[in-house]
């Protein structure tokens, strides 16, 4: 397809500003002035609308396709939350208003949303306080680790250097730990998909600042030794960090705050179904227990005895600002709307049905693909395409076969500790029929891997493009229209 720049016709306009109604005509002094106009495209509104509508049609999305991308929790995004986020009273609100003298009375509705959302999150997770500032899950991780660092600094724990992370963790965990100034220690998993306790015991010493854990793990397994793990980490005054990536399996079944964790983040797009937007924006609220509360970022939303809301910046031990304002408000209000609608029962049902669907899919597939941990799973399960790989058909080939069947592939090659991994998460919003269809196609892929393995290299065949040359992309670095083509 053409680029928008290639549709450009000199002099064409897609939007007209009105004429200036002020008598002043200002001139930028030459020394400060732009020399040449920015080479933006010149298209009509219709040109742009067709262009971007056509582009959208090149995507798979939840609205159009089954999207069982493991660990990413691609559940249906209710439409009414879109309407709510676009209400003028939220969308047009300037973030500096509540910081003006007398300004907080202009934003009582927004502050109430934030306050109430924090209360819901505290009750759901068993934590004492939340900050809504972090702008995505990984940003939440970094915030949590900075709280950990502040705790150790205040306690005079000068030796703390390591953060322990299981080998099944998302890549963001070690990356966030490194940015927060820690070295990481990876702990392998045992044969049941849990943490290897002996390896953990060997790693725990007084240089350990804390441990980051995802429960259920990315293997879809609940960590049954959690009390022992928490005891070990706390015995050296370490901090227990709960990565909330898979909280969607746990609502009403257990709360991280009750399991011995000190701090956690939530990915709102996973558990509370804020749309992922093709790669964000997200939101990564962080919850803490009493031990870490005083270090939370500022500002914090406070409810006064009279029932009004205000922002408080007066926390001398706070780590400071982690974002410019109060978080990704338009995402947070969607999450709040979703919670209000579902309520206690509805939220518990999301986890029940997420786990039911995952087990159903796993049970039907395990006759045809190697299941990593043959036991009941939580919200997702991890298979290996090792049998198919022995025939020359790899996880990526099966993924491309599925694309031709109009199904978004599962997550492949993650967790990295499993070879030929295929991580499948159907979510609670999908129907039995959709899952049955997916299983049929997966069986078809398995059969085809026996009869005609070489054909897989041609997949996908029905899309506007076949497999891209990724090596060329990394070698040529053509990442802007204005850079020269390599050939």
């Amino acid at each position, binding site marked *: 397809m053409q680029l928008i720049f290639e549709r450009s016709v000199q002099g064409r306009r897609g939007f007209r500003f009105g004429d200036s109604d002020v008598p002043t005509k200002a001139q930028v002094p030459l020394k400060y002035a732009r020399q040449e106009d920015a080479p933006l495209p010149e298209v009509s509104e219709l040109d742009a609308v067709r262009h971007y509508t056509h582009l959208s049609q*090149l995507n798979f999305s939840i609205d159009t396709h089954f999207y069982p991308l493991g660990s990413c929790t691609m559940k249906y995004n209710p439409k009414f939350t879109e309407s709510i986020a676009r209400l003028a009273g939220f969308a047009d609100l300037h973030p500096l208003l509540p910081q003006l003298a007398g300004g907080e009375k202009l934003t009582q509705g927004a502050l109430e949303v934030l306050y109430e959302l924090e209360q819901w999150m505290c009750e*759901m997770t068993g934590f004492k306080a939340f900050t809504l500032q972090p702008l995505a899950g990984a940003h939440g991780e970094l915030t949590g680790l900075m709280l950990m660092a502040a705790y150790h600094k205040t306690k005079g724990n000068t030796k703390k250097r390591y953060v322990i992370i299981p080998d099944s963790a998302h890549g963001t965990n070690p990356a966030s730990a490194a940015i927060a100034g820690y070295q990481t220690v990876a702990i392998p998993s045992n044969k049941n998909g849990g943490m290897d306790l002996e390896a953990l015991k060997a790693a725990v010493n007084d240089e350990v600042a804390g441990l980051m854990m995802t429960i259920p793990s990315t293997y879809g397994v609940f960590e049954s030794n959690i009390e022992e793990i928490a005891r070990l980490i706390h015995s050296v005054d370490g901090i227990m960090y709960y990565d909330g990536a898979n909280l969607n399996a746990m609502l009403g079944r257990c709360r991280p705050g009750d399991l011995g964790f000190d701090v956690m983040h939530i990915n709102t797009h996973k558990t509370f179904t804020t*749309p992922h937007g*093709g790669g964000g924006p997200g939101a990564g609220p962080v919850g803490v227990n009493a031990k870490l509360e005083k270090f939370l970022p500022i500002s914090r939303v406070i409810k006064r005895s009279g029932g009004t809301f205000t922002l408080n910046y007066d926390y001398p031990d706070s780590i400071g600002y982690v974002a410019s304002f109060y978080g990704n408000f338009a995402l947070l209000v969607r999450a709040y709307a979703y919670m209000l609608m579902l309520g206690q029962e509805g939220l518990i049902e999301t986890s029940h049905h997420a786990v039911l669907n995952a087990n159903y899919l796993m049970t039907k597939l395990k006759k045809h693909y190697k299941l990593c941990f043959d036991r009941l799973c939580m919200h997702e399960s991890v298979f290996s395409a090792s049998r198919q790989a022995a025939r020359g058909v790899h996880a990526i080939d099966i993924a491309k076969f599925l694309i031709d069947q109009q199904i978004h592939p599962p997550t492949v090659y993650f967790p990295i500790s499993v070879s030929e991994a295929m991580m499948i998460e159907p979510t609670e919003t999908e129907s*039995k029929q959709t899952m049955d269809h997916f299983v049929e196609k997966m069986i078809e892929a398995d059969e085809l891997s026996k009869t005609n393995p070489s054909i897989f290299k041609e997949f996908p065949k029905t899309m506007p493009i076949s497999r891209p040359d990724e090596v060329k992309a990394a070698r040529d*670095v053509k990442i802007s229209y204005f850079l020269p083509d390599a050939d």
Partner: protein
Amino acid sequence: MNPYITNTEFEVQQMLDTIGVKSIDELFADIKPQHHPRSFNLPLGMSEYEVLRRLTGLSLRNNVYLTPFIGGGYYDHYVPSAVGMLIGRGEFYTAYTPYQPECAQGTLQALFEFQSHMCALTGMEVSNASLYDGGTALYEAMMMAIRITGKDKIVMDGGVSPIYRKIIKTYTHHLHYQFEEIPVVHGQSSRPEVNKHLDKNTAAVILQNPNFFGAMDDFTDIIEKAHAVGALAIVSVYPISLGVLKTPADMGADIVTGEGQSLGLPLNFGGPYLGFMCAKKQYVRKMPGRIVGQTKDAQGRRCFVNTLQAREQHIRREKATSNICTNVSLCALQATIFLSLIGKGGLKEMAQLNLDKAEYAKQCLAKVKGVEVKRSSPTFNEFTLHLPKDASEVVERMIEKGFAAGFPLGRYYKGMEKYLLVAVTEKRTKEEIDRYVGALQEVLA
């Protein structure tokens, strides 16, 4: 039952039978009674209509009807309707990060176009596919400069947004970097002071154009000095101003970041916004965040993929250039559509309208008794007033008159309690500006 669960009771039973368990409870057998929640006391659910009514009610308790003259880096610009309609397409906003390029060319091409737009705006050679917001983007740029130079001293101009500076302080206070903050003089970068602090240990000088006080600058001289000592120059920019202002590329900047809210994003009470980062091509492998690259498929057709992923956390884990994963793709798409619609001529026209209206407001305000317009250098669409009394009191009185009159600088700068930062965008009419001037006159009388 929760309205977004599709399966019926009958189907649920069929599924349980297939799995070989009697109830959903059995699926949770690994979670022992001692793990059960000590409390899960939440309200009952509501209907869609009830939630809409409740949240519409809360939205009405926010005042968005004041005439805004407030900016501070976040501006009331017009967003053409087509922008909102197009990003509302489910194929865009209900997709995930484009891990499978064959079924995500829409998102990938849009991000390639975004990168190209940002290069067009800033004049830089390369761009990434977005970061969270302007503040975190500046932090990422600083870390990138430290990685590139292997040095640990940062010279930060006082004209950089105090909000951004606070964020950077939070992220680095536990790390061992040396910071030199150089206060502005008459609202502008102090050349002698900045230059004095540039030395062989400096990783980067961080500048902003226009600066927080609204003043435009040409940093070519500072950047030359920085380069002479082996430091990089990072410039944070306001994208709309680049319709008329000298590009950071023309000043010699190495890394350019900014807040893209002005490019078609609503104010949203603080987010989501759009962080962007551009750089010289030689530094592309040190950049944080996702980058989309052009390539070909097996049939030689042009296509787009996430590229240079060896920098990223999902490959490199603790050795990654950043921990960022989810960024703000949909906001980048918003900016892409916005820039495509207004186009080459529109950007210049929009910037000129901002400039003209702000200049008009300045001229009128200069005539108000007791008001002094700080005029140390030309400004773009925001400028600083010195008032005869506390600016936050004045703002409070102006709220009663229907105006968000500006941002009192005393909030972030000690000793500047009488200074007010006023923004005038293309949306303000002459009539609104005249009424604002009249209201201020009354308040100060």
